[in-house]
């Protein structure tokens, strides 16, 4: 009986945080997140939601999770906000150095490999799920996924973050090869909207970017401009 005196919560399944203090006092800043990247002929489209949470408190509702690594390479960050910011900073520094040595812009694969190196060799200390996407003149548009654990693999499109779990069915059934830039932008916006609709840790606005030889073209779709997914009904 002593244990039940101390933990009445043991009668109910409960999450890890303490009952004695609110969740936002004991939780880490997390980019809960829904992120995505898609390749098209001539570039890539990347997208992310804009919510950063501390427990269930939204610390930042207009976060920018699409982070520049070089002029033609961006990364989408998910997981611990601190970890991913630190890694992105480091990779940015290293790639700048590399670019100076090389005399031209680094390849997307190089950036992805740099991310992978940090994420893999520090895998026990990090909580970072990263998508590296961009354009280079050797292979055109490329998307590389660097999930928890630090592997690196190229994919025609990839989704990440907590919200991605809700849209695997949608992307698997909707994706087709050979989409145009506009189709990719639309596909990304719809997917992220669906993820944000269901995932409490994702929300806010949809930030999109299209990266090609010409550069980076950013788009913002605000909360009230997203497609409305609420189906009204009322049973008495």
């Amino acid at each position, binding site marked *: 009986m002593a244990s*039940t005196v101390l933990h*009445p919560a043991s*009668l*109910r*399944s409960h*999450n890890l945080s303490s009952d004695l203090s*609110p969740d936002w006092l004991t939780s880490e800043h997390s980019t*809960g997140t829904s992120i995505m990247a898609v390749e098209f002929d001539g570039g890539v489209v990347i997208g992310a939601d*804009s*919510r950063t*949470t501390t*427990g*269930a*408190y*939204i610390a930042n*509702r*207009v*976060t*920018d999770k699409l*982070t*520049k690594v070089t002029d033609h390479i961006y990364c989408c960050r998910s997981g611990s906000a601190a970890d991913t*910011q630190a890694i*992105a*900073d480091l990779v*940015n520094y290293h790639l700048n150095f590399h670019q100076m040595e090389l005399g031209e812009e680094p390849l997307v694969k190089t950036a992805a490999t740099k991310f992978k190196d940090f994420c893999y060799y520090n895998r026990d200390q990090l909580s970072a799920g990263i998508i590296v996407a961009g354009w280079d003149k050797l292979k055109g548009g490329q998307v590389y996924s660097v999930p928890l654990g630090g592997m690196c693999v190229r994919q025609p499109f990839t989704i990440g973050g*907590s919200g991605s779990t*809700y849209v695997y069915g949608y992307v698997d059934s909707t994706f087709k090869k050979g989409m145009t830039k506009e189709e990719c932008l639309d596909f990304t916006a719809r997917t992220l909207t669906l993820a944000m*609709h*269901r*995932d*409490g*840790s994702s*929300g*806010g*606005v949809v*930030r999109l970017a299209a990266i090609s030889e010409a550069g980076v073209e950013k788009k*913002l779709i*605000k*909360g*009230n401009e997203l497609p409305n997914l*609420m189906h*009204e*009904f*009322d049973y008495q």
Partner: protein
Amino acid sequence: MVTGTSVLGVKFDGGIILAADMLGSYGSLARFMHCPRLMKVNDSTVMGAGGDYADFQYIKSVIEQRVIDEECMNDGFQYTPKSLFSWLTRIMYNRRSRFNPLWNTIVVGGLQDGEPFLGYVDKIGTAFKAPSVCSGYGAYIAQPILRNALEKQPNLTEQQAKELIDQCLTVLHYRDARSLNKYQIAIVTKDGARIEGPISSATNWDIAERVGFFDE
């Protein structure tokens, strides 16, 4: 288990308003988007609950049955806000003392003897009455807004109270990751009790354009 988030309550001149969104969360999953969390007990009393939705449905069915039984007694008496509040407090505290709580935070509101009433009871039996009452994240985010408004103007009109509640729910939608921008309100005045909704607040995302990269 499926849970509901904040419930807000505020008094105005001649009545009270309760508000709660319509989301049933399953952890971080926004699973059920049409969970009414407000209940009309009778024409002078309303109740709202956050926390476990199954426990709320149980409490709701018990109250509904008691209202029917009382109607059958036909003695002219019906549940008042204060009597319901007192009864709920006893139930919540007793369940807690038997280590089997009803995992809810409940807000009771209504009109008793012409005076507005608002009360809060939670799963461990803490109970109090106040001019503005909020549960969950609302207690941290909406309560200061409500108290500030009441301090400036202790006697709000019904319309002012509605707008104030809408403002609070907008901020909660921005800042509570387990909320939904679709809510109901319950209004009690001398003319009776009614539940309105679903209503969605207008949101403003203009600041999203003004935010740069974290490292720029």
